[in-house]
């Protein structure tokens, strides 16, 4: 009888352990797997650019919502559209799961020579409603990128086309207009779906 009681006790203990394990796996995760959160948010530097409607905007455009900010250009054939598609898919996935707070997707052009507000507008609209495109003079773009540690450099023309090397990171800007965290490339939907609720909720 004592042996039987021992087996029952072990079975109960194992059940409790299994329950605790399952509970730990289903609780909301608290640690980002990909995002690097800065110890303290850094204010986005001052700049003066145009949005996709040709309206002048400054650093205050980043206040009031969470932003996912990517630096690219519309003539980029694969990395840029693939990254924006990842962001759009992650945002939709979060929306479908019932998340109320969703980030805005922002594309800052590093190729203002070709990316007019109109061209940029058609491009960012393709990836969903409410996206923001920023373009303007090279000097003003460099004010923004320089203050955020973003690199870009136009390459010598090769035939009719030229390329622009650029940082592949996606920056997360908080509703106070502060550079809060970043995702390094390559970008994966699951990483954003996992990390964004933590990043945005942990503020």
């Amino acid at each position, binding site marked *: 009888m004592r042996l039987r009681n021992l087996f029952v006790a072990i079975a109960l203990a194992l059940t409790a352990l299994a329950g605790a394990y399952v509970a730990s796996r289903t609780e909301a995760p608290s640690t980002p797997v990909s995002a690097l959160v800065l110890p303290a948010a850094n204010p986005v530097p001052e700049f003066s650019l145009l949005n996709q409607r040709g309206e002048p905007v400054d650093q205050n455009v980043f206040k009031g919502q969470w932003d996912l900010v990517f630096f690219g250009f519309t003539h980029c054939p694969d990395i840029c559209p693939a990254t924006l598609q990842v962001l759009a898919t992650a945002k939709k996935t979060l929306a479908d799961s019932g998340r109320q707070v969703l980030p805005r997707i922002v594309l800052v052009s590093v190729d203002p020579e070709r990316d007019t507000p109109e061209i940029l507008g058609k491009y960012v609209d*393709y990836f969903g409603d409410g996206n923001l495109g920023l373009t303007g003079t090279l000097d003003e773009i460099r004010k923004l990128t320089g203050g955020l540690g973003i690199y870009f450099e136009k390459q010598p023309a090769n035939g009719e086309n030229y390329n622009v090397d650029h940082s592949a990171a996606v920056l997360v800007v908080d509703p106070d207009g502060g550079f809060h965290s970043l995702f390094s490339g390559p970008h994966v939907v699951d990483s954003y779906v996992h990390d964004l609720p933590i990043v945005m909720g942990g503020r």
Partner: protein
Amino acid sequence: MRIFAVLLTLFLTACGAPESPVVVSDVEITRPMPGRHMSAGFFVITNNTKEAIRITRVESPQFASIEIHESTLEDGISRMREIGELLIPARGSVTLERGGKHLMLMRPQEIDRSVTLHFFSNEMPVLRVDYSFTDTEKDQ
């Protein structure tokens, strides 16, 4: 002369032989997006012969210009360069994919539902690929 014979054989057999010396599979061509005058082409190209093959030029009636490019992501920087040719090793294959080698198709002409690509090696045609867009296809 030998290379001419090889390429002629490639071209002829690619057009109808049971086992083509050069095969292209998993083709994806992105539709030109709003605001852009270019697309990208991705596929796997396989060389079934005993000799390496160089694809030196690709043409299409649907695009004014096509270049062979390679994107890289190193140290957090995205770069893209024209590489000029695709070297397909003997009995090997090369994958053109996002973030890597790809065709850059520029200045689209009249595009309805299909795109034809003509592959050349040293000015000799070696392969023709017909690609049709699907209704549900996502552009990127």
